[in-house]
């Protein structure tokens, strides 16, 4: 193979395969450029930036929708774009639709609340689109560089977004805290990435998984003085996890979240809590499955190939392998026998230690995150801050099925796909719940100049529609039946049960108890809104027609999906059908 042929093949690959599948992101890039260009020319700057942004967002959404309906998603096979930089499968497609739909809703919201007005509109939309491109890259990252690049691209514009209201002290404080905290975690993450790349000799996730198989973790762990290498691997993994935890606002890397949410404007909070979180969860899935699963491998093939391959490798490697390692390889079945977890008996692939590491770390962090978020939300006076803690708690809930999915990969890939789909489903419901809540907060802020929970007292008398929508959304966030949140929680519990084992049961118990804990602070807001009598100084709350319609459009699905979740559930299901192609 010479350089000419490889460049030819790469060019044809890029132009024929990768670019068409990269359409939605390209549309956003073009929109950014168009937004800037219109400002340069005197004739064109009459066009309102909102129109351009909306058009761009809708075209991007259209480009990301599957051409032949949901059935197409189930048929998508995993493939790599841009020579392995990105991966394209149905999960990517689902998250992209999610993000593009969010982008459209978000720019409409920013326009309705007046956050992005005519003069600064271009800047605002450019930043939002730039961040969304980064999130798309996060969701499809297949290489350590795209992983880091995606996180940076998603974060850096959102630092600016959180400080977008320039004259306010709190806003600039939020932006500063977000930027510095984000940079710190990015640094730690980068260091972790470098350790992983260095020890595995590659930065391409599937290749790294391949290398991990050869790394023989179980054997190295058993050997007294070789486990240091495994520990370095674990250190790299954890440091990478710090960056992910920052994006997910998982405890103990959640500190930025309440401060930034309180300081930034409500619209941006919606952006951070929905889009950013969904992308981070998708990235968590990518990392978990990327390191815990070699593409094309099934539990059956592993079981069939386990023993013979081991001996063949042993024979082949006998010449240049130090005696100690050979000893371990001989003993490997024995160490499998006294595996720690109950389900490890069924999960004996070479990557099972990686999976169990991931599952345990993510599982425990998710439980802590969830409990912490719910407890700390007690007694908050600012509604944005309360919802920030609620976001932390929900990140915990949504991490649980990811842990379950990775735990299932070695046993039952269909069930693992199901677990991922439960996360996607929850994220989809979460879009409506949280964006709806923050939209209501933003509209109320505009009309009553306050974001304190106490000032919402008796809202039901002043604006019944908003009060009802807010109550419905909060009830859904608790996860009480007729609302969509219940279906989502139930689905998560289902995936935990399917994964089984003591850790999953513990997570199930914790999640159940947390639902009860969270009740207290959500209901408190409901009570303030619906039952308390309004303060004497209350001003009437007037929402325009479009604002009311927007709030309704986001709140109704919360109820509708609780009663008719089938269609969206099928989408999520279809999106994960081909996850392990």
């Amino acid at each position: 193979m010479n350089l000419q042929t490889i460049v030819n093949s790469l060019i044809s690959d890029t132009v024929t395969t990768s670019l068409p599948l990269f359409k939605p992101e390209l549309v956003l890039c073009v929109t950014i450029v168009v937004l800037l260009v219109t400002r340069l020319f005197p004739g064109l700057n009459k066009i309102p930036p909102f129109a351009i942004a909306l058009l761009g967002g809708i075209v991007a959404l259209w480009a990301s929708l599957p051409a032949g309906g949901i059935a197409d998603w189930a048929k998508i096979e995993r493939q790599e774009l841009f020579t392995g930089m990105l991966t394209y499968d149905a999960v990517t497609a689902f998250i992209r639709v999610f993000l593009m739909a969010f982008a459209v809703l978000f720019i409409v919201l920013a326009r309705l609340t007046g956050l992005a007005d005519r003069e600064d509109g271009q800047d605002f939309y450019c930043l939002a689109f730039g961040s969304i491109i980064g999130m798309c890259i996060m969701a499809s990252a297949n290489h350590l560089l795209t992983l880091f690049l995606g996180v940076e691209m998603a974060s850096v514009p959102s630092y600016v977004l959180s400080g977008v209201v320039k004259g306010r002290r709190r806003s600039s404080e939020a932006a500063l805290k977000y930027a510095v905290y984000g940079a710190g975690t990015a640094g730690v993450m980068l260091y972790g990435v470098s350790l992983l790349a260095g020890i595995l000799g590659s930065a391409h996730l599937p290749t790294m998984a391949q290398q991990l198989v050869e790394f023989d973790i179980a054997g190295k762990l058993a050997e007294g003085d070789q486990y240091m290498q495994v520990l370095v691997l674990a250190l790299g993994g954890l440091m990478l996890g710090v960056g992910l935890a920052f994006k997910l606002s998982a405890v103990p890397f959640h500190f930025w979240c309440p401060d930034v949410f309180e300081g930034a404007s409500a619209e941006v909070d919606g952006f951070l809590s929905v889009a950013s979180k969904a992308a981070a969860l998708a990235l968590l899935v990518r990392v978990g499955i990327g390191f815990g699963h070699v593409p094309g491998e099934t539990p059956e093939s592993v079981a069939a190939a386990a023993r013979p391959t081991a001996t063949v490798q042993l024979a082949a490697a006998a010449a240049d392998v130090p005696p100690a390692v050979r000893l371990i390889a001989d003993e490997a079945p024995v160490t499998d026998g006294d595996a720690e977890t109950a389900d490890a008996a069924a999960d004996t692939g070479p990557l099972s230690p990686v999976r169990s590491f991931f599952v345990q770390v993510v599982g425990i962090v998710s439980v802590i995150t969830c409990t912490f978020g719910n407890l700390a939300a007690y007694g908050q006076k600012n509604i944005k801050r309360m919802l920030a803690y609620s976001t932390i708690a929900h990140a915990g809930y949504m991490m649980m099925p990811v842990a379950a999915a990775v735990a299932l990969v070695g046993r039952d890939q269909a069930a693992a796909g199901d677990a991922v789909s439960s996360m996607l489903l929850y994220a989809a419901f979460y879009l409506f719940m949280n964006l709806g809540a923050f939209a209501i907060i933003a509209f109320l802020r505009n009309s009553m100049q306050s974001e304190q929970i106490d000032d919402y007292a008796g809202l039901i008398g002043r604006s019944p529609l908003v009060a009802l929508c807010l109550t419905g959304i909060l009830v859904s966030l608790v996860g009480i039946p007729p609302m969509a949140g219940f279906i989502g929680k139930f689905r998560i519990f289902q995936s935990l049960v399917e994964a089984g084992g003591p850790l999953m049961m513990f997570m199930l118990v914790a999640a159940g108890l947390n639902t009860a804990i969270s009740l207290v602070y959500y209901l408190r807001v409901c009570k303030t809104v619906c039952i308390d009598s309004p303060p004497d100084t209350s001003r009437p709350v007037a929402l325009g027609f479009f604002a009311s319609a927007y709030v309704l459009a986001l709140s109704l699905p919360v109820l509708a999906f609780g009663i008719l979740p089938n269609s969206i559930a099928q989408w999520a299901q279809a999106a994960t059908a081909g996850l392990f192609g």
Partner: protein
Amino acid sequence: MGDGIYWPTFFFLLFSALACGFALAVVFSRNVVRMAFYLVMSLASTAGLFFLAGEDFVGAMQLMIYVGGTLVLLIFGVMLTSQKQFVEMKTPAGQWIVGLVTGCALVALLWMAAFETPQWQPISRAEAEAVAVQPTATPIGVALTNGRVDQLDQPDETLRGGMSSYLLPFEIVSVHLLVVLIGAAYLARAKRRSPSAAAPG
């Protein structure tokens, strides 16, 4: 052993001492203007380390972008905000202690990770001397456009699968820079915002 001084090692020691020394100076200096100067020196010494590792192109970039670009930016910031009272700000002693203890623990951890991993240990002098010097700019340039010359000979099929060209990052990073500059310009512009849309702060 004993075949005389291996000069690359000497330069490594020199540059690393400079880099670490200036980095520590940044930490311990209280004057922000001096800090900026020490940072320049530390980053420049790091560029020296890059050259020593054979990565001349990245070293040059380090000097140009980091030392040249980023620091000029920072120094602008220093000058814009350098009134007398901000030049020196004291950190309480208690925080120094906690910070230094944490720092030492972290350094110990990372050093342990570095030195306890067999494949990261030095190769022999003979091996090192056998490595031919190659230009790095061309392979990097090719990789940024579409191909990876370093992995053409990779015999392992799966490893060759992972030969990633950096075309996408190269293009997308330009979009990122564009967006980021819009954002920075937006924030740095004089404020023009009616208070009605903002919550009371």
